[in-house]
């Protein structure tokens, strides 16, 4: 994976066949914007650069920090004829809380199973803590705290017995911390796990994961099935604990508000590919939605004079008698006054959910 310094986002890359479906990562750095050309094969970067505008500075090309905690490159995985991951790439730096966002079936759990070494990728590279995962899966897992989507702990065990079982696998097991977490979470140590509620089980799983003193905490949709109160409580705990430990956290979810609550950086995955990797706010700021009465809609028309700054139309359709379109801009979406719009157009407020839907819908449109 390469990082190029570009003065502006250019659409050339995204129109290259090799980069189909590419969402680039943008990181402000010394007045420049670093653009990660995520899915471009390394050897084709030169040719890619050659077709870019002259103001692109190819000499600024640099490699991503090879000591990333998680580094997935072009991961592919199929189950029979069903392709689940189709060139997934992402990178998580030390100390980050990385939100891994995607719809159900987007490939999040498969990606996590690959990260855990439970499932093998058909193709691509998986590096954890700077080392190829395949070198020593067990050693890698000993540095990972994992909270699964479903808590499959032995129902006959009590939390105390569970700790006796689990501690044998983790050299860095911290019993004192486990007990502290049990106290903090108000979990009864002598009650059988089978009698716990979903929220209690998730807290117990988080306690187990944190008691291993992990370098990397992987949370695979841990709040699935929780009521809103329990979910909020759990997220607060995650935020608190990760802040305290400074452990790198990989948080998988399909709920964008959870991401907003805990993540410092996000990756959006759709149909097994990375659609976006970067911080949340630039993504949100780069989009805007306008609508017009469907009867006044003229094919091909735009809400304003955006042609120069428009990156692409992410979404377009009709809803409640109005034709609407979501545009993604190369930078922050322009603040447009009503009088600057063509007659009949209206600026609509976008929630984070709208942003997510726009991104994944666009991905599907490109796919089609």
């Amino acid at each position, binding site marked *: 994976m390469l990082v190029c310094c570009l003065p502006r986002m250019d659409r050339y890359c995204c129109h290259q066949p090799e980069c189909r479906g590419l969402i680039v990562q943008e990181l402000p750095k010394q007045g420049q914007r670093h653009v990660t050309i995520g899915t471009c094969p390394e050897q084709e970067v030169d040719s890619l650069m050659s077709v870019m505008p002259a103001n692109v500075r190819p000499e600024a090309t640099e490699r991503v920090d090879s000591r990333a905690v998680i580094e997935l490159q072009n991961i592919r995985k199929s*189950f029979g004829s069903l392709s689940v991951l189709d060139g997934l790439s992402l990178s998580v730096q030390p100390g980050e809380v990385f939100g891994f966002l995607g719809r159900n079936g987007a490939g999040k759990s498969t990606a996590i199973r690959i990260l855990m070494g439970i499932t093998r990728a058909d193709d691509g590279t998986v590096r954890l803590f700077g080392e190829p995962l395949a070198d020593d899966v*067990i050693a890698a897992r000993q540095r990972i705290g994992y909270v699964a989507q479903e*808590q*499959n702990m032995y129902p006959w065990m009590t939390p105390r017995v569970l700790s*006796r*079982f*689990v501690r*044998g*696998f983790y*050299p860095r097991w911290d019993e004192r911390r486990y007990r502290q977490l049990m106290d903090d979470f108000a979990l009864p140590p002598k009650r059988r796990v089978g009698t716990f509620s979903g929220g209690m089980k998730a807290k117990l799983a988080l306690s187990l994961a944190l008691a291993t003193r992990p370098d990397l905490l992987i949370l695979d949709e841990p709040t699935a099935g929780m009521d809103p109160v329990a979910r909020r409580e759990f997220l607060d705990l995650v935020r608190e604990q990760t802040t305290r430990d400074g452990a790198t956290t990989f948080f998988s979810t399909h709920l964008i508000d959870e991401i907003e609550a805990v993540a410092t950086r996000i990756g959006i995955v759709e149909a097994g590919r990375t659609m976006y990797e970067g911080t949340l706010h630039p993504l949100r700021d780069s989009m805007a939605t306008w609508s017009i009465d469907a009867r006044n809609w003229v094919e091909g028309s735009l809400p304003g004079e955006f042609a120069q700054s428009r990156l692409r139309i992410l979404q377009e359709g009709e809803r409640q008698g109005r034709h609407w379109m979501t545009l993604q801009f190369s930078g922050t979406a322009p603040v447009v006054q009503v009088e600057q719009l063509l007659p009949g157009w209206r600026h609509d407020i976008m929630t984070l959910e709208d942003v997510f839907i726009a991104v994944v819908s666009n991905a599907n449109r490109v796919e089609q």
Partner: protein
Amino acid sequence: MAIASLLGKEAREHLGAALVLSVGTFAIVLLALAQNRAAAYSMSPFEVVRFSLITFLPLITLIVGNRLIVREYLSGTRLFVEALPVGGVLPLVLKYLLGFAFLSLLSAAMIMIAAYMAGIIEDVDGPYIFLMLGKTLVMVSLYWSIVFCFSLCGHLRIGLYLVTIGFVMLMIYYPGIDQSRFSPFALMDDQLFVFERDIVPWKDIAWTLVLSFAFTLSGFVLARVGEGSVADRLARPMTRRDYVALSILVIGGLLVFSTLVEKSLQESFEFSGDFVLRVTDPAVSVSYLEPEYREAGETQLTLMQDSLTAMQARLGLVQMPSVRLALDADREKHDIDYSTLDGVFITANWLEHDAYDDAIMEAVVLHGALTYFSGNRAPFEPYHWVLDGFTRWWVEQGYRELRTTHADELLARAQFALDRMPAGYDLVHQWQLMADEFAYPTAEALAWSAMSYLEEEKGTEVVVQLAREFLTKSVGENALAAIRDRRRSSVERFRNITGLEWQEFDQGWRTWVMQQAGQPSVLAISAQIPAFDGVVESVTDSSGVHHLYGGYQPLQSATAEKTVNNTSDVAGESGFVFAGSCLLKHELIGPFDTEFEVRDDNMDEQSCAYGDKIHSISSRYAPGDRVYVALEYETEHLHQPLRLAVKRLAVQ
């Protein structure tokens, strides 16, 4: 640490159940043993082990498999372990080993209990225990590997079990399939499992282990296909379609099973037609074929009725098994077929019988009746000699006056055997070998002479007591009494009944036989018995044709010099010809066949003479065949041939 954690988890999860299963198993085994002891005729305690292996050990294996594997997959806890820092195969390997270890320990404990209860009576020694243990553990490994493999097939396992049960039933009940001839059924053969002591069934053990390995490997492969996703998918709950398929399978299986059972069931056979004589108490029937044979049939009917009635009263038996005699006029008069599966069924030709021949047949009938009482077990026990000796004794002098001519011939035979008996042989521990070496007529004469000596020493009642003790007595009023009783050896039981130490009896009996053999009437018969040995040779010539050679040479053993008269018959190295005939009988046998007798079908009869190749047969046997060859001497002075030599040959 990871292994310790996994083992600790399994122990915490299953220890209670394992204890309950163990206690339950031992309770059942002890009950079965006690029941066995209290039965009118008791089996070997090792039969209980076999019974356990066939019946509830598979059920226990199912329970173990269900707890160790199925539960882990169905409840999804496998996914929890899967995410821990541990190899993917290790948890399953540990489960496999734990299951096998538990079942092995359980089975080994059963063997040990059986060995403890069997004691000396069963002639239990180290090699025998190891053989039993080996066969048992091999079967346990097969059960466990099947359950292990099927447990990883999720809900399909129920169907697979049903198919397997169906297959086993097919093997057992389908007429024409002798399942005892191939693995793994051969290991569980009702005769060989308990009674085989000398031959280790390596081939069956190897095949069974191969099967176990195949199932085990399949299980591990299944658990790893698609990183275990196949086993995971199969572990999901059954759908309606699965239930319908399963129901169809069960119904189909039951239909096939009932058809096979119906086909294999045989109703108790009864003679029909006009030429049948019957009495009801005891139940004896004689089929005599033609009107002109009626008289001979009536004689046999009366003979058997009298004998059985007297024996029933004397031994205090509630009911005798039904006895059926079928006349086969084409048979040799000493060619007697008998089976004891459904009462006693005898096929023989008694038309030309004299009193001695009748006594032989009568002894066979009584032998069958008492064998039937012992659940067909007595012929395989160390007290077999009591069965043989008592039946002949009963026929000769038990309920009638002793006929001296019979006694003379029997004594001559007994002396013949004692003269040639290897040092250290005794009736208890080498009875089967003696019967094999000298054939039944002579072995029976030996046993009869022992009973006659006992009668002379201790009286008739002691002989009857001995028969009651070994052949008909129910021992042990409860489990403890049964265990105590089983600890006594047959030698000890003999001493308790007779008041004689075995060595003392053995020595006295031998001396008595030799003294009796000195009577002129016995000497007259002994004089007709040649002092020579038979030698058998198996040769495959350069053209690949196999030859069997039988020859005779002067008796070399030192004991031959003791023979009072017949040494004088050995006139020279060659040229001497006896009045009788020399017979070479041969028959193909299987790897485990332990026949003592060989049919007359394959027989070469020659005039007796010294030489290596008196019998020369271009045989039909192929390399690898096992052939039973016997050399016998037949003379008009003896009612039955005299066995000179026997050999089991492996054709090269």
